């Protein structure tokens, strides 16, 4: 078991958004999060990544198991593609970046500054970062935004290779990725009443 | 060497620093010219081959 989420509730900006979510990810699993805009997918992923505390429930995962990919890519405009990637490889203490560059078709672009990439090329670079984290659980927030069909295919391949190697992925998306996956629709877990733990003192 | 009197330090340092600055800018100009020229020649060669 790589990640176990038990009876989780989470809030955004002080407002409870999702409640009573439970699911598990084993090696090889892909779980797609669905839900209309504003239903709380980003909130859930941030909570799982450890950026915000849950308001109730438990998240069980090994320390440093989750690699988070957010709406924003965290690219440095003045660094080249290779430099951006090498930085993250250094931070995560993993080795080379060549495999990551190749997987997202960035070899040609590797000396280009990130600011001179098109929207989709930037996104590919952002995704390549996942490969250099070396972490088993990918928690991705709309990874395929701005990608063309071919690049979505590259991404799907990367995910397939990752889970085949014993990893798992949790992906929030609105489109069809062409992956075999379970689906979790978060709109079924919309928080109804304000959870007491939050403002209980004032209610 | 001319007799500079009590102002020797001033005059000499003025000449020293000025000449140093002139030499510095000339050197920088020449070195950069050489460097850019080499890189350009390499690029031309690549282009010629490719």
């Amino acid at each position, binding site marked *: 078991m790589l990640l176990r989420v038990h009876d989780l509730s989470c809030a955004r900006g002080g407002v409870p958004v999702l409640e009573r979510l439970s699911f598990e990810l084993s090696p090889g699993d892909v779980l797609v999060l669905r839900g209309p805009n504003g239903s709380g997918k980003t909130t859930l992923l941030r909570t799982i990544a450890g950026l915000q505390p849950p308001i109730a429930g438990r998240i069980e995962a090994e320390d440093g198991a989750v690699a988070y990919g957010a709406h924003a890519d965290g690219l440095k405009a003045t660094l080249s593609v290779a430099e951006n990637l090498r930085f993250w490889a250094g931070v995560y203490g993993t080795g080379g970046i060549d495999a990551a560059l190749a997987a997202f078709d960035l070899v040609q672009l590797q000396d*280009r500054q990130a600011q001179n990439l098109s929207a989709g090329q930037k996104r590919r670079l952002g995704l390549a970062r996942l490969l250099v984290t070396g972490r088993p659980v990918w928690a991705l927030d709309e990874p395929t935004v701005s990608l063309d069909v071919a690049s979505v295919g590259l991404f799907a391949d990367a995910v397939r290779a990752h889970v085949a190697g014993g990893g798992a992925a949790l992906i929030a998306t609105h489109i069809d990725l062409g992956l075999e996956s379970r689906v979790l629709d978060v709109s079924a877990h919309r928080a109804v009443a304000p959870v007491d733990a939050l403002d209980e003192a004032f209610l | 060497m001319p007799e500079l009197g009590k*102002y020797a330090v001033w005059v000499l340092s003025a000449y020293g620093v000025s000449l140093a600055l002139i030499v510095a800018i000339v050197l920088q100009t020449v070195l950069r*010219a050489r460097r850019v020229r080499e890189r350009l020649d390499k*690029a*031309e060669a690549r282009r010629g081959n490719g």
Partner: protein
Amino acid sequence: MKRMSLWEYANPKKFMATTNVVLPWISVLAAICLVVGLVWGFFFTPDDFRQGSTVKIIYLHVPSALMAINAWLMMLVASLIWLVRRHHVSALAARAAAPVGITFTLIALFTGAVWGQPMWGTWWAWDPRLTSFLILFLFYLGYVALWEAVENPDTAADLTSVLCIVGSVFALLSRYAVNFWNQGLHQGATLSMDKEENIADIFWYPLLVAIAGFVLLFVALVLMRTRTEIRARRLHALQMRERMG
């Protein structure tokens, strides 16, 4: 045959070809004038009865201050040509002149300060000419920094041209401020042709040679740097083309 227009030289190839021929001559001439002027001034002129040997600083201070201001004015002209006629060479020439201008400004500042200490009893005074000259120095720095900071060459040329126009106010002030308000410590015009009596011939001739040396040095350096900038642009263009595959 049609008379060749001056603008022909705005074509990089033409420019490179011409300068390739004249540059060695100018460089040699610059070296000769500089050496003759400075050696003459330093070794073979008498001391001034009031200023003592410090008068020898004049052969560095006046030419460099003169050229520091002229360099900016040259950049102004080049920038205007770029803005109006979009000739790349003139933009690059402006860029090439800035570091040379900075060097001359530094020389003028340093020699002025070193001269001021014995003459005025202070390194620095906040009089109008010195002040606007210092501001000009800051503008030089800003100009170079702006060139460095912008990546697209044409954008950088445009932006720095705008800056150069604005900065010219201070170039002109540091030359003419003495005429506007006469409160500074600094010398007024001593070099205008009709006021030759202000300065004895014996100082005047070596000074003229030194000025010629600085002018020629400036021209030689700017031509050489412009050639380098043209090559750099060409390199850039080739790399762009490689990138396109």
